């Protein structure tokens, strides 16, 4: 880590100074830019490429109280072969579940190339003790999940206790690093609760400094979830972090992305804000459930020249 960033994390007041010293984000400007980029017209080969790329970036997610081992196994099967009648369809990046179902997913996905992501740290609210959050993470990691989606303590962040948030991410990261597998840490900022784009930028840097491999917009449990301007700010953060450290970190947008059109707008933002090298599943992800089927239907429409019914797709 370069000196300037190592200094930033030396103690609570250095961290505060660093985060408060980041350039501001102009709300009108960032929203205008996001809206402008959303008018890009992606057609033909570019659209075909975008659909396949987006499918390969999906974290197929089920985070319901009513989830069962059976429903998770069905989701895993879909993750591996999203469109069984079209075997050339790429598989998704990962399946995302609650930690108690991670073992089921790990078993179902063994050897398929699809990763298992587990939410942790008292998802979605993050309202519990440090020890409970770490135990939650340990359950995920011990079950064999190779990706952990943790939530930050938004209460602490909004109160300005940046050090607490930082320490918690570092502690979770240490558990991930101690695991037998390589475990990637995604840090959920829950931007819908952070109130300003300035805070989104600060939280992004905080998570990156603490060692998060990926910064993620939302839990999907509150509204607003992912938005294009928020994604812009986060993509700028990983781009700037890369500029300073040379380390590529990723972004995951989650919640509310349901259509191919939405997904393509995010890919355009990735390309034009962060850069082409971020257009890969290790550096950009969609956390979604219903998006996948729309991508598959659009993929079929591109191949067949007409739309087909969703009944041909597995649940």
């Amino acid at each position: 880590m370069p000196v300037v960033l190592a200094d930033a994390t030396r103690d609570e007041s250095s961290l505060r100074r660093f985060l408060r010293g980041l350039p501001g984000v102009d709300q009108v400007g960032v929203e205008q830019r996001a809206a402008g980029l959303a008018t890009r017209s992606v057609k033909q080969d570019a659209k075909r490429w975008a659909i396949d790329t987006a499918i390969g970036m999906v974290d197929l997610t089920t985070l319901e109280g009513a989830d069962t081992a059976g429903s998770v196994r069905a989701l895993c099967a879909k993750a591996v072969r999203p469109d069984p009648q079209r075997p050339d369809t790429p598989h998704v990046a990962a399946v995302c579940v609650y930690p108690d179902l991670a073992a089921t997913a790990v078993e179902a996905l063994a050897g398929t190339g699809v990763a298992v992501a587990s939410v942790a740290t008292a998802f979605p609210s993050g309202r519990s003790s440090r020890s409970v959050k770490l135990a939650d993470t340990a359950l995920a990691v011990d079950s064999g999940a190779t990706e952990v989606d943790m939530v930050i303590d938004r209460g602490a962040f909004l109160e300005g206790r940046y050090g607490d948030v930082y320490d918690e991410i570092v502690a979770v990261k240490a558990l991930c690093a101690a695991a037998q597998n390589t475990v990637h840490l995604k840090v959920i900022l829950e931007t819908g609760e952070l109130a300003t784009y300035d805070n989104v930028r600060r939280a992004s840097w905080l998570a990156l400094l603490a060692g998060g491999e990926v910064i993620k917009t939302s839990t999907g449990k509150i509204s607003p979830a992912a938005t294009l301007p928020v994604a812009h700010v986060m993509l700028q953060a990983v781009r700037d972090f890369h500029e300073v450290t040379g380390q590529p970190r990723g972004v995951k947008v989650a919640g509310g992305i349901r259509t191919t059109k939405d997904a393509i707008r995010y890919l355009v933002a990735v390309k034009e804000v962060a850069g082409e090298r971020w257009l890969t599943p290790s550096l950009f992800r969609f956390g979604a459930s219903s998006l996948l089927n729309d991508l598959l239907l659009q993929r079929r429409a591109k191949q067949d020249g007409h739309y087909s019914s969703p009944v041909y797709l597995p649940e």
Partner: protein
Amino acid sequence: MKGETVFDYAPAPENPDIARVKQHYQPFIDGEFTDGGGEPLKTLNPATGEVLAEVSTVSSSDVDNAVSAAREAFERVWSPMPGTERAKYVFRLARLIQERARELAVLESLDNGKPIKESRDTDIPTAAAHFFYHAGWADKLGYAGLGRDPKPLGVAGQVIPWNFPLLMLAWKIAPALATGNTVVLKPAETTPLTALVFAEICQQAELPPGVVNIVPGGGDVGQTLVSHPGVDKVAFTGSTEVGKQIQRQLAGSRTRLTLELGGKAANIVFDDAAIDQAIEGIVNGIFFNQGHVCCAGSRLLVQESVVDEVLTNLRARVETLRIGDPLDKNTDIGAINSAEQLAKIRELVASGEGEGASRWTSPCPVPERGFFFAPTVFSDVESSMRIAREEIFGPVLSVQTFRTLDEAVTMANTTPYGLSAGVWTEKGSRILWLTSRLRAGVVWANTFNRFDPAAPFGGYKESGFGREGGRSGLAAYLQGDDDD
């Protein structure tokens, strides 16, 4: 998964047939399209250099006819008409522009070279907005602060430039009609087509004959029009050089004059600015419409503590700009309007290199056919260099640095122009302090190139006088109770 990532947007061109380009266009005088007595001109598609259409131009006797038709219409129909009735016509023009927006946008891009996303999302909608806004004023002129019953001036002779053909027409015609004047308008020689489609729209709206007359032609036609004794008011948008000639010509006459001329705007970035959005504003300020904007932010003044960061990010951002076919929906920078303008840009860029400024040009691919110029940024620029003083009217930015607030103000004001300026800072008090010291008609704070019919636009110093838009814009077409 593919090994390498390729996300090149496939071409997404708008269909040129939508523009319904005709082979031959005619002047519009006294409600009729008739061939003029001037030498026909050929208007080019600057993206290909090929002839787009032939346009019949007017002779000085045609200008006479147009002015007398306008006089007749002024006296018999338009000025006696109650404001409520005039408003209906102006509203109708606004709605018809909206109805034919797609056709107008494609035609504008074909004739001018600007990218379709700008003609579609800015030029045409803002033109319609100008008519809507002024239609609302037509029956409320007594409340414009110009006296209880302000009177129109008569016949307005209007000459507009080629950078925003339909939008400049709207800026001129909408306030003139709403206030009860009639007009004779000369569109630019290289971009006459949308004005002549607007003439069709006047017919469609059943506007009384003579209220709007469109007289295509070159500089000679413009000169005949502005010096015509039957014209009560001249409104000109264009170069400072021509503006000065017109002012000389009209000196001593009773003809009223407003001029909207050149600019060399300073875009000032302070170290506490929201840098990412400032970069967007810089790009928008100078590369919007290929830099063919009189209020373009062509001089970037950056506080020296952030200049490296700003330049690095700016270059990275400019590299993402896509230059090419104006009709492609993904094109960010279209074609330079004419070979003549391209030569002027090249000449000034060469002078910048010759005078020792450091040139950086985006490595983006540039089409081989047509008139194109890749976005260019000059650093190490001194105030004495031509690229810092003269209006380039192209996608070329000159970057200078400053240390203190006072220095920024001095640098920004060191120009004969004074049309616009931009300020980028998170500090509101500094914005307010600066707005009272910058000698510019428009000062944008944390944004650039935003236009609204309700906001007056116009210059200080050699950028002209008179305002367009808002209440002040109405004053340019009305005689108040206090006037003689």
